[in-house]
């Protein structure tokens, strides 16, 4: 990780023109997260459920000896549940010094999006607008850029635990 420092700063200096994002699928939509927040992408592993945790937290996993929470994006977005398959991945992120995993249906690729191709979130149907920081327009597809802080934040834990 350390050795990649120069390239990371290079991508940051070019941030005014290009945005580097990791794209992945949840349900029918394609999403993107800025690459600087992504620590790694791992295959699904055995999850330990946590009682009294927010409903969208799938559980915790052992990431090389560290215990990290994992959020099911499908649950977070209120999408119907789907059985995990060989495409299912956990995107491990670091945001606000919290390391956390997101369960996604599949990971597609790393994309460079021109900064001027990103527009503010329009009205969206299924995905709650609160999680979206913008929409990237590519040749023939739309990439929903996620606001990590909002996804990770626990708006009302009291309520979530009361329901559980």
């Amino acid at each position: 990780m350390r050795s990649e420092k120069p390239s990371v700063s290079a991508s940051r200096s070019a941030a005014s023109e290009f945005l580097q994002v990791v794209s992945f699928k949840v349900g029918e939509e394609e999403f993107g997260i800025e690459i600087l927040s992504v620590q790694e992408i791992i295959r699904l592993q055995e999850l330990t459920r946590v009682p009294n945790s927010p409903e969208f937290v799938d559980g915790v996993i052992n990431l090389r000896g560290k215990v990290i929470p994992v959020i099911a994006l499908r649950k977070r977005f209120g999408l119907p549940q789907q059985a995990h398959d060989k495409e299912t991945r956990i995107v491990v992120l670091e945001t606000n010094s919290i390391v956390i995993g997101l369960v996604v249906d599949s990971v597609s690729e790393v994309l460079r999006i021109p900064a001027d191709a990103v527009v503010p979130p329009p009205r969206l149907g299924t995905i709650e607008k609160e999680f979206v920081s913008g929409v990237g327009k590519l040749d023939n597809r739309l990439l929903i850029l996620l606001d990590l802080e909002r996804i990770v934040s626990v708006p009302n834990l009291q309520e979530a635990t009361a329901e559980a």
Partner: protein
Amino acid sequence: MEEYYRDPALVDAFIVETEELLQSIDQDLVGLEHVPGDDELLNRVFRALHSIKGTAGFLGFAPIIQLGHHAEDVLNALRRREVQLTQSTMNALLATRDRLGVMVADLRGGGLKPKYEIEALLVELDRLQKPQAAALEDNSGDLLGASTLAQAQATMRVDVRKIDDLINLIGELVVERNRLLQLTKTLNSDISQVDSPLSHSASRLSFITEELQAAALRTRMVPISTVFCRFPRLVRDLAQALKKETRLIVRGEETEIDRTLVELVSDPLVHLIRNALDHGLESPEMRESGGKPRQGTICIEATQEGDQILVTLSDDGSGIDPARILGKAIEMQIVTAERAASLSERETLNFIFLPGFSTADKATDVSGRGVGMDVVRTNLKKVNGSIEVHSKIGRGTTVVMHLPLTLAVVPVLLVQAADDVFALPLRAIVETDRQANTRVHLVDGCEVVRLRGETLPLLRLRSLCPLSSNQTAPEGKIVVLEVAEKRFALLVDGLAGQESTVIKPLGSYLHDCTGIAGATVSGDGRVRLVLDPGELIAWAANRPPQAVVQ
């Protein structure tokens, strides 16, 4: 002020060293007060001050040199028996120490202030020494100084973070070792070979890992005297302020505790000592009329008991009056008068741990603001410790703090509920029994079990698990847990062994999950949640009564 170039590393070393020396001066001065003729103590104070002054001179910290110099003169006069050690001498010397402490704290905070109000103290120090006592450099001081230096080199200062890193890595090693042992077992049973070189190597590795872990944990242990050494001074000052006569007995200073516990124990103890002096001990006149010696006694003792450290603070003061506590509790509407009548003395005493509870009629500088005992208990709970109070009216109060020996490794019992395996800290477990040996009764809509004549509230572990039903497998096990002298029974599907593990916090993201203290990574690499018995019982008490599945 002259401009000096000072090597920051030297200044840092000076600060650390001076803080330690000031601490020892503190102790020795108070010791000297009790044994005024003790030359050894006097010499130690002199040497410590001399060495502070010396380094300060090298670094050019003028106010420290000035103050150190004047105090040294007084000490010199004392050593030559030209003057007697009086109360005012002692007060001046302690004040000097405190001033030096303030200066060092300022240094730590960035630098000395341009001016310190030390003139009055300097005049006082000059008055206390005889005029002819010229400040001759004393060779013996230097010689002895050299010998303490040689002693100091046997230890080395290491950044705590480095040790924590080391211990974390060893924790990982232990987990990996467990995994290796399990793999070896599986592999050996596959090839039906028990005595393979692999298992030899694995068990040897296992042994070394354990030794390594124990050795690393020892590096974190410090004698509890690092906490206790502040108390003689504290008791002295408080006793003077409160006009009480007090004797402090300290026992078991050599008992070792985890370094991270030092700060955690220190504040509660200071608080308890303040309480004991302010509320516990009576004034000398009252004590005399009550047939007690004028001088009150406060005793602090540390002992190790199994995997716990007990710190006991007792006084021979007036004790806590349960009736007064009950009165206050009723007044504060914590309990109803009817309920109060049925409370045991112990339950009554426990009210003092509630937030905002104080029986003191007026708050003093020393204590009685109603903040404290609850903070003490909360702080202890954070590290899996507990606190209890015993008191007899007219005879005194004893407070016992239970602390874990180390925070790093915790023995746990693995319990099952449906498909989930949880870990329970062994410390909280009283006993386990087969469910078949007991019967579940319903009392006021709550489930209870009777075990050996004792009625215990029952909590089903399955009710904590999100996706499983409350129906327990027929051959369940009962685990009796005790938290802060409250017992309850936990019904689990089965027991799945015992482990020593490193408990990791669930992180800020999941810290609100009731009933879960943290997680451990077990031998097979799976994450296991560690239950928090204290929270479980609270959670069980607060959940709405539910339909019971028979």
